[in-house]
């Protein structure tokens, strides 16, 4: 019958041996990481990310970045950290975009609200103005109508006093035929036919 406690001790011993081996740097991984712990290469962040994300990049820079991951424990740790941070970076970017887009929307909403308020005030104001203009126009028309009636009355009264000019005897076109009449009235006769040829026609 197997005693769990004994099995547990066996496992513990085996774990202990494993840790002891690691402490003795008999693990290739540990030895390699210790060997590359202080190695920090001059690596380009863009190329490093492109290599990690599988994006295309300049071949030489990409190769340098991958070699940095292989030969520098610090860059390898950075790569793992960036992998763990990816989701947080996406969340941050999305949140920032959301906050930024909320800002113009709010401004637009406020602007729309202000415009609507103005429209609400402008409509009654325009109606009032129209009403005022209409009343004024009607008033003007009535005033003009009354004034026209009085003028007609005045004109008819005046026509009685003045003679008809069209058929008046002052018409100059036929004035020559009425010479005698005009002489009598004191008007000068037609001069063309009034020349005096008795003195030699000069």
């Amino acid at each position, binding site marked *: 019958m197997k005693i769990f406690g004994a099995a547990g001790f066996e496992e513990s011993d085996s774990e202990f041996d494993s840790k002891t081996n690691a402490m003795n740097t008999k693990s290739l991984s540990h030895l390699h990481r210790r060997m590359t712990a202080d190695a920090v290469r001059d690596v380009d962040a863009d190329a490093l990310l492109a290599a990690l994300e599988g994006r295309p990049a300049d071949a030489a820079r990409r190769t340098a970045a991958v070699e940095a991951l292989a030969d520098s424990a*610090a860059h390898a740790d*950075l790569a793992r950290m960036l992998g763990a941070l990816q989701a947080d970076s996406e969340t941050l970017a999305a949140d920032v975009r959301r*906050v930024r887009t909320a800002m113009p929307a709010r401004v637009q909403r406020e602007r729309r609200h202000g415009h609507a308020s103005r429209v609400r005030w402008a409509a009654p104001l325009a109606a009032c103005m129209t009403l005022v203009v209409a009343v004024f126009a009607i008033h003007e028309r009535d005033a003009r109508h009354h004034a026209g009636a009085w003028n007609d009355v005045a004109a008819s009264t005046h026509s009685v006093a003045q003679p008809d000019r069209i058929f008046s005897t002052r018409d100059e076109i036929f004035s020559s035929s009425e010479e005698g009449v005009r002489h009598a009235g004191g008007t000068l006769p037609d001069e063309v036919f009034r020349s005096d040829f008795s003195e030699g026609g000069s």
Partner: protein
Amino acid sequence: MPSPSDPIHARLEELLAAYGARVKALLSTYGLDKHGVDPADVEQEVRIRLWHALERDRSGAFHASYVQRVVASTVIDALRRAQVRAAEPLPEEDDGSIELDVAPVAPDRRAVDLERMQGLRQCLDEIPERRRLPIALHLQGFSLQEIADLAGIPSAEAARKLVSRGLEELKQRLRERGMGDFED
């Protein structure tokens, strides 16, 4: 950019603060602080760079790839600075060494480690490039699919074969140097 009293400004700051805190936590989780990177400094730098980007391009799209690039370049810069600092002479009472994965080791063991590291370096250099790169990526902890994607190998299965054969070759070379047997 809206004024600091604007709720939009406050919301963006809140988002960047949460993201910065996540960056800081992951830097420690993935051991980048052991490479001389100060997570608090990187967090602050990332937040500043992202904020400047938001101010610079107010109507532009804010993509995740851009955010990732900002983090990557900030950490790379920090690693470069850490390397420069490590190269500078330090006070005697503080050796400033960066320990990775294991507890501090005694001088004699450190000498053995150095010898093994040199042997591993030489053995790796002797392996053809086609197999050396997949092995090195495997030893850095990348999965077979990641190795295939990074090294331009057609499939994860092909990567597995290359890694397997390469590791056997590496172990054989290490044995021939009298360095004993190694686990993966």
